[in-house]
């Protein structure tokens, strides 16, 4: 079964093309890594897949149904951790999570139970600070909790692991694995290729401007296998990514 189906997705800002005829499929129950260099259109694509942005052309299907920014019923089945986190700084973490839970239709008893459990698990129990006073890592944890509180079927995470301490990352990875084991889908963008390699089973790589250059199974790397692209053989994700995106390390002699 397919969780996400993207066909001919185009997003333009005036004459600037941010996403160019992008098509890919995310199978249900997979941990899907969506990779690309800075400015390649990853966040724009996530924006189109989650209703934040309206595509210029193309179709998005989620859980077998056509998705637009107005698809309220489908949004209830999705969880999103956006790039900017989307947090209300004046609120306390429990107030924010309760707000999100209620908006996603959870009953009051479930809201209270899940908020308490999430805050405890993510070590966010200091109720004397508002979200605006939290560190970057704590803010990420709150945004992650908000994305999962309603137990969605498809989870979109835009750079979820940056700024979170190793223990927090380990906990989140454990949750995400359990999440996919239950047949649910995770769609991740990240620049931490080692994490993506260990966590994801499927990967799509795009380059500027939002063009798909590779899509495939990366579990071969963990089985000491290799991926062949254009005659070249890659045994890890990082060299594959650098080869496909043409990224180079600049040499600054004075540094």
């Amino acid at each position, binding site marked *: 079964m397919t969780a996400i189906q993207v066909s001919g997705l185009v997003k333009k800002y005036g004459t600037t093309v941010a996403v160019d005829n992008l098509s890919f499929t995310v199978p249900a129950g997979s941990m899907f890594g969506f990779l690309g260099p800075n400015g390649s259109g990853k966040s724009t694509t996530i924006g189109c897949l989650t209703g934040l942005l309206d595509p210029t052309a193309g179709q998005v299907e989620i859980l077998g149904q056509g998705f637009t920014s107005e698809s309220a019923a489908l949004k209830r089945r999705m969880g999103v951790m956006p790039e900017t986190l989307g947090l209300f700084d004046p609120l306390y973490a429990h107030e924010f999570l309760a707000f999100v839970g209620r908006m996603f239709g959870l009953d009051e008893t479930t809201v209270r139970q899940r*908020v308490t459990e999430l805050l405890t698990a993510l070590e966010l129990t200091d109720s004397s600070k508002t979200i605006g006073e939290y560190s970057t890592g704590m803010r990420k944890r709150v945004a992650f909790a908000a994305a999962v509180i309603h137990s969605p079927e498809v989870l979109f995470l835009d750079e979820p692991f940056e700024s979170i301490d190793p223990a927090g990352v380990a906990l989140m990875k454990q949750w995400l694995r359990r999440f996919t084991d239950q047949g649910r889908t995770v769609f991740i963008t990240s620049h931490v290729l080692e994490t993506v390699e260990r966590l994801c089973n499927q990967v799509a790589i795009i380059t500027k401007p939002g063009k798909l250059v590779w899509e495939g199974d990366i579990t071969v790397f963990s089985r000491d296998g290799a991926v062949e692209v254009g005659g070249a053989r890659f045994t890890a994700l990082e060299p594959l990514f650098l080869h496909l995106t043409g990224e180079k390390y600049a040499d600054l002699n004075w540094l």
Partner: protein
Amino acid sequence: MDRKLIAELVRLRYKLMWAKTRSRNGKIALFLAGYLLLVMLLALMGLGGLSAGITAVQQGRSEQVAQIVFGGLFMEAIIAPLMLGFGMNAVFSDYELRRYPVTAMDRRLARHFIGILDPFWAIFLILELGLVVGLYAFGGGSFWAGLLAVLLLIVSNYMLARVIGLAIDRLVNRKGGAGILMGFVILLAFVPGLSIPALKHNPQVGAALLKALAYTPPFGAAALTTGAPLRALGGLGVIVWWLIGLAAVLVALEKRPPQRQTVATSKIQWETPYDRIARIFGPANAPLAAQWLRFCLRNNRFRVLYVLSLPLAGFITYQMGGKHSGPGLALSMFTAALSCFPWITFIGTSRIAVNQYGYAGGAFRRYQLLPSDPAASLRVGSYVNLLFGSLMLPAGALLWILFSPPPLLISRLLMLVLMGLAGLFLLHAAGLWATVFGPRKGNYTASFGNDMSAFGNVVVIGGVLLFMAPPPLLKELLPAALAPENWWWTLVAAAVCIGIYLFSLKTVSALLVSRREHLMAIVEGRQS
């Protein structure tokens, strides 16, 4: 002092200001600001300061007129920054400046130097210079002494506005601070009006008061501009002492971090007054309403303006209507109150009402991710603002019942409340349009400063003027309209304004969907 770095930061401030004019909204704002500035300068240089100077010399009362003009401008340049935020924008915070290799003293100097170079202060400087030129041209004062006087006066004016602003900020951040502020402002608003009759009966008190005023910056500046050398020196001394004192207080306040109200408890409160009040908006809207209630009530600027709006309206009502005595007093006070009632329902909520998403920043995305109508947050935010605004009506009505000159007529009270309703709905309708068509990234945590867009400023300032002007005109041109038996037209006005609000709510909600990407870019600071 690293002058080069400070100069570079000042340049950066103006570069940033100029960068904002690259957008369409920025160009409109620049054009409007330039046009208004030119008109104001021409009008006020010609009719204000300069002619006041000429009149002063002709009447042989140079120092007295200078005291009145400097004093009046000084007061205006304190009220305008506090109420409208002009001249109080914090371009760089101390924290932001720490990345540069400058000392704490340099950072402080740079921040305040940038602050005082705000165009707002230039307007007052020119007005005061107009008086100096007028006095000098007709032999009523020295130009160079006058120039020095107004430069020092502007600096003290800026510093006093900053000190008051910071003091209010620190006060409202304390538990019960908003209440203390309200009491203080009520005292300030009503005591001068009530004390005038008392002063008339006790002229010796008035004389003592005038003597005390001689030790204030405007009076010091007046003495420096018009006085003989020894008196001028005394005037200079007064301003310099004020500058030293204000600098000391400013540094002390800036060094004292705001004490935020926190409830140190590990127990989560699930059932709060926010949640209980939010339920009146219905089960579907309750979560959003609770979020908006918290968003407003935890905002310092909202709390300050909300607390100040009613005493300010009382002060203006008394100033506009309390000049008459005898039988004309009741009508005069009623006319003034009719001018003020419509905007008391808006001033408190105005900043958020004209820019609902500007202070949310990245959180605007959250609204779009929720499984609800994308415009639901706009509507519920507006309902919450209406709720806050409407609470001013019974409070205003109560003040009118307590303080209005007899006889108390129910029909007049009804007219006031109905005009209050008209203002509530019309101004919040305009706020909806400004939210979607004139958004601007704002600073939620700042207590002062004007970070509204040009559209927002037009709605707030224009909205207040729109309701202030008609009642005095009606009193002169169509007095029957203010007669108690003709109360019905205020009902019509309220009904029309409610209609405009409902139309705006529906139309703007539909337009929000097509504008949201643009809105998102602006409130997240990616576009200006």
